[in-house]
């Protein structure tokens, strides 16, 4: 309909070039490297890797522990989402669930591992309380707990969002039609949520399968794919070809998972109209789900509690007297302060440039008549599929000889690509919903396209822009899998530093740094929410 403007084309070309250089090219190089051997090109790397018993065992272990975690996570996430959406439990408890569930998102996964060690380990908080070891935490059990905590927020959000699209009136209709509890539940809650439950399972599985932080801390001798990949690349005998093979193998379940997610989308119901409906009272239902969500929440808080206790006592768990010693030690260490500074810098740059790129890409896709704009959707599907470790590794392979190696820039770019999908979809969603005639109106009133974007489109999507900024910032702050192959001595960030510190058993430093990340993220979240509230009032 409307004609594409030159300025749209320029932005489009810049975005295309960025994605070709920092997403497509590295992945092609990775794939290529997995086939190259000293004798030429072939499948021999795959043969060697797959005949290696340790690796095949690691793959089996990864599948086993990730799927177990996904089952538990989906069940817990559903129970919490049900409690929030379909019961009449005390409102503050609902709010506590909605806020508390997000806590794990604010800390690096590697920290969970140490928190689990300090809670369930030989000298752990709960071990002391129960006066015995509850179970062996290094290996399967530790990984399982870690993965469940790690993926619970994401799974909860998927199911919780779908609950919003369920018309609760059907629950009442079903009751009026004489359905029993089970039939009513299956027809009005379970069936409409089937797609979301499947989605939560797949998401939880992929996240667990590709995470590096948790196995790096509590994996023990239990081999999983992520630790094998790390060993192949940064172990005692680095082998880039084998690393490339493992990365491709790691990509595979993620690929299947994304296809599954798209397939499951079909099971989702889309009601266009629904009204707020009062829920029927039920004492049993409410007390059951109230207790359950309280227990889940407390269990999670209990694991994280140690992170906030350990750094503030003299010598956890032997001498529990309050002390500032560990905090002041960290702040007096130039090394650790600069690492925290690096993290802040990387997160801020990722947030700023990531927001510009994701918003720009969404703007072109949602609100311009550009030809070929669908390419951006394909990029976003690719970034959704590629695990952080795989992306980081492919950067290492492509840029190892270039001047980008060991710079902050390469880390920032990797983060922007790694986390591109969600911000892009958020922006696209918001921009598509806006009145399609604004650009035409602006033009008729004398604006050029960029001016309308600046004067009309941007002010009406401020809230989404802030959301994208905080998403990028927080994720860049906590990611370890994406950056572990890219950091150098000068560009170490907190998450990768924690991985180093564990070899020197410097757990107090680990917890202080984790608390710092947590508080920084919390602060960013609060500021962003406050700004969003202001934007909302201003719009009313």
């Amino acid at each position, binding site marked *: 309909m409307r004609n594409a403007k030159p300025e749209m084309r320029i932005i489009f070309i810049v975005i295309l070039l960025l994605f070709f250089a920092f997403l497509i090219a590295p992945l092609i190089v990775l794939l290529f490297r997995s086939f190259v051997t000293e004798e030429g090109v072939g499948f021999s790397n795959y043969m060697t890797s797959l005949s290696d018993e340790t690796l095949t065992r690691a793959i089996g272990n990864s599948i086993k522990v990730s799927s177990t975690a996904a089952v538990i996570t989906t069940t817990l996430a559903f129970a919490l989402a049900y409690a929030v959406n379909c019961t009449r439990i005390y409102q503050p408890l609902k709010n506590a669930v909605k806020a508390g569930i997000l806590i794990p998102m604010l800390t690096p996964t590697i920290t969970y591992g140490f928190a689990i060690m300090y809670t369930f380990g030989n000298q752990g908080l709960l071990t002391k309380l129960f006066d015995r070891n509850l179970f062996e935490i290094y290996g399967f059990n530790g990984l399982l707990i870690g993965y469940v905590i790690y993926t619970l927020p994401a799974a909860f959000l998927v199911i919780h969002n779908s609950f919003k699209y369920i018309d609760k009136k059907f629950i009442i209709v079903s009751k009026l039609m004489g359905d029993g509890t089970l039939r009513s539940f299956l027809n009005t809650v379970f069936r409409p949520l089937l797609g979301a439950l499947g989605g939560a399972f797949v998401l939880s599985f992929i996240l667990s399968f590709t995470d590096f932080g948790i196995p790096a801390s509590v994996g023990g001798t239990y081999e999983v794919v992520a630790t094998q990949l790390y060993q192949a690349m940064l172990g005692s005998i680095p082998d880039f070809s084998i690393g490339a093979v493992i990365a491709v193998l790691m990509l595979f379940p993620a690929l299947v998972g994304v296809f599954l997610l798209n397939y499951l989308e079909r099971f989702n119901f889309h009601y266009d109209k629904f009204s707020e409906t009062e829920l029927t009272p039920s004492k049993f239902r409410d007390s059951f789900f109230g207790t359950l969500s309280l227990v889940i929440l407390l269990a999670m808080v209990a694991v994280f509690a140690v992170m906030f206790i350990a750094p503030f006592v003299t010598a956890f768990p032997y001498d529990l007297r309050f002390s500032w010693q560990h905090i002041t030690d960290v702040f007096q260490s130039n090394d650790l302060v600069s690492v925290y500074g690096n993290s802040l810098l990387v997160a801020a740059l990722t947030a700023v440039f990531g927001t510009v790129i994701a918003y720009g890409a969404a703007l072109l896709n949602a609100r311009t008549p550009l030809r070929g704009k669908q390419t951006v959707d394909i990029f976003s599907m690719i970034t959704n599929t590629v695990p952080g470790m795989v992306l980081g590794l492919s950067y290492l392979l492509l840029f190892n000889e270039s001047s980008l190696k060991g710079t902050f820039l390469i880390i920032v770019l990797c983060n922007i690509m790694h986390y591109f999908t969600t911000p892009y979809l958020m922006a696209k969603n918001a921009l598509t919903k806006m009145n399609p005639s*604004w650009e*035409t*109106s*602006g033009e*008729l*009133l*004398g604006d050029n396209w960029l001016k309308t974007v600046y004067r009309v489109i941007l*002010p009406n999507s401020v809230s989404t822009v802030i959301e994208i900024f905080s998403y990028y910032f927080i994720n860049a702050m906590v990611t370890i899998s994406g950056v572990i192959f890219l950091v150098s001595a000068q560009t170490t960030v907190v998450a990768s530093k924690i991985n180093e510190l564990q070899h020197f058993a410097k757990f107090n430093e680990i917890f202080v740094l984790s608390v710092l990340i947590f508080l920084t993220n919390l602060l960013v979240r609060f500021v962003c929410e406050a700004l969003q509230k202001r934007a909302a009032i*201003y719009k*009313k």
Partner: protein
Amino acid sequence: MLELKNISKQFDQKVVLENIDLKINSGEIVSLLGPSGSGKTTLLNIILGLTRMDQGKIIFNDEDVSNVGMKNRGFNIVFQDYALFPHLNAYENIVYGLRNQKDTASAEEVREYIDFLELTPHLKKRIGELSGGQKQRVALARTLVTKPKLLLLDEPLSALDGVIKESIKERIKLIAKEFNLTTIIVTHDPEEALTISDKILIINQGNISQFGTPFEIINQPSNDFVKEFILRQLQIKRQNIYNLFGEKYA
């Protein structure tokens, strides 16, 4: 005077408009009337310059504007959903265009438009706080401030209810007269078209079915489509009104 010469348009092989040929005199109100999918909105967008035509010419005051871009054509439109900017208040919406062309309207003139559309009490309101009729008037004001040479209105009454509809109708007539502004209105409602306009262009399946004054259309319908689709509706409405009030009010 606006002249459309042989305008044709296809979308993906499908003919949307065919050989549209007509003249509209200055200051006239003309309605484009037809069922949905008849091509009337496409024709409006072609006149505006938003949609490219495949064939034909648009002559405005003896000047061929066929290849003049939307922005430079000097026409303006009020969209069906008004497309007001929700982050600005009513007044900021009205003067939006003045930031770009400061000399189009003086402060005095802006106040006149605002007074004329009776918007003074609503200027500080957010768009979300305005009623449908108020939004329509703000959108009209925003457009009029740019002093368009031709005013295009896309379904201006369809989102409004009862009494407001009639008052906006009168307002549009007044605007055309007061500013001697040629106005083209898209509508699917025969009653609306016949009561607001000087001439009506009835479009069916991309072709002109009839072009004439309300009197001509009522008394000399040129084909079955006009009779069946346009007049039939009005006759049923008339019958309903008779039934309500009795024949004596006929």
